[in-house]
């Protein structure tokens, strides 16, 4: 059994290598890392809105250094035209008047409050900090979690399905039906290859984007959640590849799973948008499992029972579809 598994494992690695899967994974890792370090974090550190002040009489003596003074209302109009998110403060008539291009109402209130607060920076707030993460650490963990989830749910899923479609097209699955081999090993070897590849990816992505010390502290929990999601997605990918006729049909299924299933999860987990039904969405719990792992939050044992149950059920379904496939002819 061990020899058979090794042969299958080696063959699957070669299939992935020849399909440029590993190269693609390295490419994605580089792309994500560049995005986090060169784009996302810098963006998150930027001041939220530029504030422009027209104060000909010089009444605002205690204003923050973040406030940019303009010499005339025309200059303010020009600045706001070029920076539509900016906020203008007109102090020419004594009272300060807020000038801005409108967006969503609650955001506009926030913009106005922020701009006005910069006129009295001495009133500094000292709130009790509940989180141990700095804002940058928090941002890094959030984006790393999202990218890892996307990689496992969309890219890995696509990779395993592509490999199986290839084998299905070549007809070699049927040859395995008459080999002296436990048929389940054919599936297990693929799961192990993808699991290992995803775990390595998760380690590198986490360490490169959350830092060595921070990353190492959350890594065991992150790897556990990665394993759960990786196995689920690999099994769904295998099932789709076995049940669907060709790659075109699979593309449709891929769109449904990767976009329509994942989008509400991202919205619910990362924004103020809340759906009543999101608790019934299986991806939501898996995503929250991964997010909780990054932030060191305890995860309910019920979640693990559900996850293991799902993996077992998916495996049985894949097994059934696989045995049906190997009996096919020509």
């Amino acid at each position, binding site marked *: 059994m061990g020899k*058979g598994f090794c042969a299958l494992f*080696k063959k699957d690695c070669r299939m992935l290598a020849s399909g440029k899967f590993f190269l693609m994974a390295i490419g994605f890792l580089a792309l994500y890392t560049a995005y986090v370090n060169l784009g996302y974090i810098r963006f998150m550190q930027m001041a939220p809105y530029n504030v422009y002040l027209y104060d000909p009489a010089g009444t605002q003596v205690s204003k923050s250094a973040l406030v940019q003074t303009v010499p005339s209302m025309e200059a303010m109009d020009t600045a706001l035209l070029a920076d539509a998110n900016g906020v203008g403060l007109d102090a020419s008539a004594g009272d300060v008047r807020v000038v801005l291009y409108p967006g969503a109402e609650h955001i506009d209130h926030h913009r106005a409050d922020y701009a006005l607060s910069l006129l009295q920076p001495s009133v500094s707030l000292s709130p009790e900090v509940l989180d141990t993460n700095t804002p940058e650490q928090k941002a890094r963990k959030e984006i790393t979690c999202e990218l890892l989830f996307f990689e496992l749910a969309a890219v890995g899923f696509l990779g395993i399905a592509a490999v199986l479609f290839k084998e299905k097209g070549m007809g*070699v699955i*049927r*040859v395995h039906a*008459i080999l*002296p081999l436990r048929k389940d090993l054919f599936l297990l070897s693929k799961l192990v290859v993808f699991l290992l590849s995803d775990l390595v990816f998760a380690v590198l992505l986490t360490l490169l984007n959350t830092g060595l010390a921070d990353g190492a502290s959350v890594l065991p929990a992150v790897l556990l959640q990665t394993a759960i999601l990786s196995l689920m997605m690999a099994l769904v990918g295998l099932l789709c590849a076995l049940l669907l006729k060709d790659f075109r049909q699979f593309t449709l299924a891929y769109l449904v799973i990767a976009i329509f299933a994942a989008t509400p999860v991202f919205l619910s987990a990362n924004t103020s948008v809340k759906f009543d039904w999101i608790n019934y969405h299986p991806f939501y719990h898996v995503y929250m499992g991964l997010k909780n792992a990054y932030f060191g939050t305890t995860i309910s044992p019920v979640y693990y029972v559900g996850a293991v149950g799902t993996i077992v059920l998916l495996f049985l379904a894949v097994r059934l579809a696989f045995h049906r496939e190997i009996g096919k*002819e020509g």
Partner: protein
Amino acid sequence: MIEVKNLTFSYSKDKQALHGLDFTVEDGEIFGFLGPNGSGKSTTQKILTGILKGHGGKVSLFGQDISAAHGQEFFRKIGVLFEFPYLYANLSAVDNLNYFASFYPREQRRDVRELLDALEFKPDFLKKPVSSYSKGMRQRVSMARALVSNPRLLFLDEPTSGLDPSGAVLFRKIIEQERKKGTTVFVTTHNMVDANLLCDRVAFISNGNLVALDTPKRLKEKNSNHRVVIDYLYQGQRESKTIEAPELEAGIPFAHDEIISIHSQEPTLEDMFIQYTGRGLS
């Protein structure tokens, strides 16, 4: 080696593929299984190779019921050449064969290069990916895959498909060599030349029924009209006459100067198939 009694199989309630087949295949025999598309050939072969479960009747291979013989021990003893050359297109012939051979015990495996050499595989292509091979070369690698484990029972589905005439002759020679080693061969084919030249016995299957089973020679003899056509020269004229074969026992029963040729009017195997089933082979 193979014993099949009252074999039935249904894909669904109203789609019975096999209607009670009965046949045996002896040790070391080359047995031909002939039938048109959709006649139940592949279904029978899939049951015999342990791929398809849920049949009715009794099927024994190596003296053991097939239902109990689908473990690894059973698959170690059989080799299967599929109708199409199922190979990893991104791997070379050698890598494909080494991969498939790795599932068998080392002492059972044949040397991959020797095998490819015997099958007259072009050495330049040994390390090139299968995707660059011609159909004939792929068929040679597939045959090598079926033989690499030294099987005791060999299932061959259209073995000479995709081969040129010299390749077909080579394959028939290889199959004959296997038989001489004691391997039992179960051949499914449309090719009457293969069936005629290779098989000790042939079975005709039509609509899931076995309609004839005998040696190719006896099948033809049984259905022969026992006539011969004689071409001859008489007084400078070329003529032709058809007579009953027993008439020849007393010599040529008509005046002639020179006999040019004598042809029996024995039917071909394909004629027999059409006679038994009312259908062509393709």
